[in-house]
């Protein structure tokens, strides 16, 4: 191991080595299928750059695996969507911008406009709770204290925002 024994990454790496088979099994169960080993390898690369003490390495690693599975799925879907959208030469911009970059920027900007509009329509406190939770990474328990409401109320607000963002009310339902 390159990391010195007392660095935070070293402890995490030891836990990782112990948990590796379990993590692969988890990744597979989450839906990574044949990519499970690759997913866990992604996690390995990431934790070697981890900073600061990790309070609960097991929970941290499971979260990392989950995020890696999700990112992989999103990447695959984006590539497929891009291939479909840019298959006709007539659609290519001519200003020298790489279509993939241009499209990614556009999709992000466009998604942002829709997300902001929907958050604005829902209003606070639900929108503010969602931002604190998903952008600032504050736990639901902390948010319950911050906003002076019960945990289940925080969850209720979050469910409302998710449903609006994901179009569940109108969407085929």
């Amino acid at each position, binding site marked *: 191991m390159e990391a010195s024994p007392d660095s935070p990454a070293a402890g995490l790496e030891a836990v990782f080595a112990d948990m590796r088979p379990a993590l692969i099994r988890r990744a597979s169960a989450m839906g990574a299928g044949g990519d499970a080993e690759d997913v866990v390898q992604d996690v390995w690369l990431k934790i070697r750059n981890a900073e600061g003490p990790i309070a609960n390495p097991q929970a941290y690693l499971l979260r990392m695996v989950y995020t890696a599975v999700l990112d992989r799925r999103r990447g695959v879907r984006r590539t497929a969507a891009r291939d479909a959208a840019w298959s006709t030469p007539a659609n290519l*911009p001519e200003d020298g911008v790489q279509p993939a970059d241009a499209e990614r920027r556009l999709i992000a900007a466009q998604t942002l406009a829709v997300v902001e509009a929907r958050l604005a329509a829902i209003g606070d*406190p639900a929108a503010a709770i969602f931002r604190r939770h998903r952008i600032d990474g504050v*736990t639901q328990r902390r948010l319950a204290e911050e906003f002076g409401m019960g945990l289940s109320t925080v969850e209720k607000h979050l469910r409302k925002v998710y449903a609006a963002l994901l179009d569940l009310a109108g969407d085929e339902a």
Partner: protein
Amino acid sequence: MSATNTMIERDALNWLVRVNDPDFDQWDAWEAWLAADARHAEVYWRLAEAEGDAVEAMKTAPARTMPVIRRGFAWPRPAAIAASVGVLALGVAWIGWSALPQTHMIETAPGEQRTITLADGSTVVLDGATRLAMDRRKPREVTLEAGRALFEVEHDEAHPFLVEVGDTTLTDLGTIFDVTRLQDGARVSVSEGSVQVDAGAARTVLNPGDSAVSTPRGIERGSIAPEDVDGWREGRLSWNDERLSVVAQDLSRALNRPVSLAPSLADRRFSGSLNTTASPGQQKARLELLLGVSVVEDGEGWRLEPRPAP
């Protein structure tokens, strides 16, 4: 969607809300639910991916802004860190503001033209018999419910300007463009910059000199001289290989009288331009000459019919 699928969606949403909590530790229970039915994993990941996209897009925003209150208002940094404080401080203003009506409509009479300036500095020139719906909560989104309008949009990378026209969504990429609501869709012509056109699964990007007609059958691309895009403001209509069914809709608005079309002419194409400021008598003669049709009086309107063979 069946009741079962709706239920799966609801369960998936509940799981997603819980899994996204950094404190979440019920991985076994969640995995068991995923494995219980193939549809569980499918729906769960569909929602999780979409939510991930939304959060990632929010993280690309340069600063946390509150476009809903007024233009240019940004959360002060400390408030972004302690948003709860900001929410309390804004609470009173929020209640007062939210009591105001949020949507409003701008409508022009037939033959009237009007230029409006939006809160962000963008301008819209409305042609006659045009209806534009706006929402104070969404200053960068408008809906063209009827008629025709020319948009000159202040570009903002983080907050694209959206125009909804029926089932078609236009996203500006910094631009001047003309939009017409058609009976069965929308037409867009770009004079400067570029516009993305989305209609259902179809998508295309228009650059200066490009136009497109979006209908339930798809998006059909065309072209137009950029300087002709806003000719209608001076009473000059130009078409390039346009279907007569679309030309007739333009004429109805510009001439201020219903112009209908014999069905056999609907798909005939026309290229050329017409000055719409002449007297009705002159108009009629010009149309007959230009379009190669007969113009028949039809109540208050005109009906374009195939010219009888000589």
